[in-house]
């Protein structure tokens, strides 16, 4: 895990080919297997990306790039939140075939920080709510 200047990066290896892994980013039936409990996905540039994480949190944005099975990019934010609204940050996923498996690299950029948003009193309460909510 690396966190530097509004940026998160992850790289993992998955023992499954990129074709299988890719579907988990674009197929609304498969998405809840790894995040949230319900997804609305329209995987084409400009298409909707929306995931109900739990009662208090819905993540939303839209797809920027859909290039199966190697690259998918979408915007990301929380519904009902001014500090990090839907579409305010960007998630970029690259899948590289690696001996029958996949190297998955995820880069999340454009993240804000509550300390740097002094006029938004709403975010802290929202964040506290998210932290306090049971993991879905």
């Amino acid at each position, binding site marked *: *895990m690396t*966190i530097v*200047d*509004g940026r*998160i990066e*992850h790289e*993992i290896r*998955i*023992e*499954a*080919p990129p074709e*299988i*892994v890719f579907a*988990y980013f674009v197929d609304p039936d*498969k998405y809840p*297997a*790894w*995040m949230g409990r319900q997804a609305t996905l329209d995987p084409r540039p400009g298409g909707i990306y929306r995931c109900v*994480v739990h009662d208090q949190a819905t*993540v939303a944005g839209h797809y920027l790039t859909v290039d199966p099975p190697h690259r998918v990019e979408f915007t990301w934010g929380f519904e009902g939140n001014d500090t*990090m609204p839907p579409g305010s940050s960007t998630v970029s996923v690259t899948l590289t075939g690696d001996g029958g498996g*996949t190297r*998955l690299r*995820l880069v*999340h950029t454009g*993240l*804000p*920080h*509550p*300390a*740097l948003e*002094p006029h938004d*009193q709403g975010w*802290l309460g929202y*964040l*506290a709510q*998210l*932290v306090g909510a049971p*993991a879905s």
Partner: protein
Amino acid sequence: MDVQIRALAEPRRRQIMELVRDRELAAGQIASHFEVTRPAISQHLTVLKDASLLTERRDGTRRLYRADPAGLAGLKEFIDSFWITGLARLKAAAEAEARPPAAPAQRREGNRP
């Protein structure tokens, strides 16, 4: 994370974070921006420092403060937990799907002959 949320819930402490976001300031310089007493500001600085949101440096008798880039990772850490948990689940789901349903997965998981 909880410590940071509590630290930032106080409006003056959020203003202090804004002041030292891009520059290092002495406690007195920070206090001059507020109507409240110097000890009250010192108290706020202590809370922010304890929450790892500020770094403190001594220069002679002065104490200098600035935003701690590492401590400012609070929200990012929170978002990151989405990805840590999510990607672990994604890996498990994709690998289960990739495994042939009938044959036991011996190549990597098992050491049986």
